[in-house]
């Protein structure tokens, strides 16, 4: 009886998993390739190479404008700009989850959004960014994409990867966590000792 129930549960589980597997989404189509985009934006970031910024505290200013080498009017199609923080090669080494990829849909190097705003043709845009508290400790550079009306990348510019600045992330450890961990641990050891001693006394009586 128990065996039949077990067998039934087993086949249900396998069936559910197969159904789930068949309904998983198909892999998405390839995105824009970075190598096909013109490097039409001149981007600057305020931190000097090797400077350390503290997340949650320090600020950086990023500016973008049309590259002087581009003909005037080349930016007619640019409707908006997204600026991202990208991992420098030294922070990508031995960390496959941060790997750069030419296909921008698969690229994992530029994970953090600095700003997204409208692009003013001919003018120099800028943004002051306070480094967010969830930016991890690593080396970064700044990249800006110019997007057209449909939101597809049509041009880009970046400050690195040759030059990069560092961010010192927060540890996430507060004094209250330290205290709580200490109290709970002490309680565990004390409770054990208490029971052991009490039972030994009872045994020896």
């Amino acid at each position, binding site marked *: 009886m*128990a*065996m039949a129930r*077990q067998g039934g*549960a*087993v086949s249900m*589980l*396998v069936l559910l*998993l*197969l159904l*789930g*597997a*068949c309904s*998983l989404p198909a*892999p998405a189509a390839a995105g824009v390739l970075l190598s096909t985009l013109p490097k039409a934006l001149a981007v600057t970031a305020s931190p000097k190479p090797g400077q350390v910024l503290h997340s949650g505290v320090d600020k950086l200013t990023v500016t973008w404008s049309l590259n002087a080498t581009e003909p005037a009017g080349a930016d007619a199609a640019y409707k908006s700009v997204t600026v991202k923080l990208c991992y420098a090669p030294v922070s990508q*080494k*031995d*960390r*496959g*989850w941060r790997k750069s990829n030419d296909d921008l849909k*698969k690229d994992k190097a530029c994970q953090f959004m600095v700003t997204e705003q409208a692009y003013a043709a001919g003018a120099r845009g800028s943004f002051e960014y306070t480094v967010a*508290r*969830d930016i*991890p*400790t*690593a080396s970064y550079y700044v990249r800006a994409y110019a997007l057209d009306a449909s939101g597809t990348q049509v041009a880009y510019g970046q400050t690195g990867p040759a030059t990069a600045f560092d961010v010192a*992330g*927060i*540890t*996430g*450890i*507060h004094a209250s*966590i*330290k205290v*709580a*961990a*200490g109290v*709970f*641990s002490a*309680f*565990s*050891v004390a*409770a*054990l000792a208490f*029971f*052991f001693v009490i*039972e030994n006394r009872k*045994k020896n009586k």
Partner: protein
Amino acid sequence: MAAMEIGAPGSSLHGMTGREPTFAFSTEDAAAASKFDLPVDSEHKAKSIRLFSFANPHMRTFHLSWISFFTCFVSTFAAAPLVPIIRDNLNLTKADIGNAGVASVSGSIFSRLAMGAVCDLLGPRYGCAFLIMLAAPTVFCMSLIDNAAGYIAVRFLIGFSLATFVSCQYWMSTMFNSKIIGTVNGLAAGWGNMGGGATQLIMPLVYDVIRKCGATPFTAWRLAYFVPGSLHILMGVLVLTLGQDLPDGNLRTLQKKGDANKDKFSKVMWYAVTNYRTWIFVLLYGYCMGVELTTDNVIAEYYYDHFDLDLRVAGIIAACFGMANIVARPLGGILSDVGARYWGMRARLWNIWILQTAGGAFCLWLGRASTLPTSITAMVLFSFCVQAACGAIFGVTPFVSRRSLGIISGMTGAGGNFGAGLTQLLFFTSSKYSTGTGLEYMGIMIIACTLPVVLVHFPQWGSMLFPANAGADEERYYSSEWSEEEKSKGLHSASLKFAENSRSERGRRNVIEAAAAATPPNNTPEHV
């Protein structure tokens, strides 16, 4: 009892305690029947199991035991689903993550060996409670680390708590009769192992809740670790207040009253180590449990990379692998017990070989699968076979020895972790093989390392390819672990009781033969 001359009055009663049943067939002790909730045998071990009961002592022990083991699995693998957050917080490289994975399973190699001895000497209740409560500070330590070295060290220390597996199996063996021990051990261990899958669902959930309460990611994962830590403390206290070592009471009280015998560690160790069957099961367990632990550590990453899945989806698939334990491991134990009813120990051994070899074949298929549905099918079948094989192996280990049961459980358990560390190191750390190729090679190694089970032979029950030796019996096998001097003092009485209860391993055919042998054809019955 003092040494007596041969032939002196009372000398033929050496070893008797006066509590043996005096009938040719065993009847239930009337006093025992009224004291216990479940039907019990001559050692007061339960002969059946009622899953939804919490009655003292058998079922309460069952639930305390498996939940403690489950908790330790949750805390040991709690980091795995949170690695994407932790690796950014602590600036980890791939090598750091891999090494931490190996460390998390290596610690318990030593603690499982030690735990076997602790259970033999102090009892499983204290073994479990000590370990689970002393491991709680290490779980809380995880919230305080801030670099790779700390991460690896703390995962190593938390991994020590996996030795609760040994106390769990040992405790089951003292509470449940050998006829159902396969099922019981399979259920308890399987549901405990399920913690490795459950944690992949629990930890991300707790993390999400804490994030919603306003914490930053790097603080939220640290707070999430307080959940497994608190579970440790809770279970430790429950085990100490509600548990007992043996059906009749706690080991120390029984030792004081003279009911249970204190044994020498060196002797217990010697009889474990010199029994060749111990080593074969150590190897075998490394290639079912070891492989399961390794897969727990690498499978989410494999699906994430190889099939470009979302982290949450990869985590759910990874959870399915571990959660299959809820039915798979007990199923292995049930198959073992059902087979033994008809064909005895030989069926149990064939069961192990079939399940584990099939597991290896499915692992090979998993490594080769190129589409997602085939891969998931292969993974599910692999998880069922390999986890059922774990259950099947622990359906046999209680019979390898009675005197050294604790140490053999410990050594077998340690073999599991050794296999885990070894396979992770061989196939999943170097960049020479992709994870898929690593899985293929692991499948081949499983099949090869399962062959030695053919060599396990019990004189009284036989082996896979050979029947039992003529004239061999259970008493001789279990008494061979005691010297003549110890036997004369009656120290082997527990082993004799066990031998009598283990006659069920002869299977149905042999029981008929034994009954026929008991009434020789030329005897006329007395009442004629």
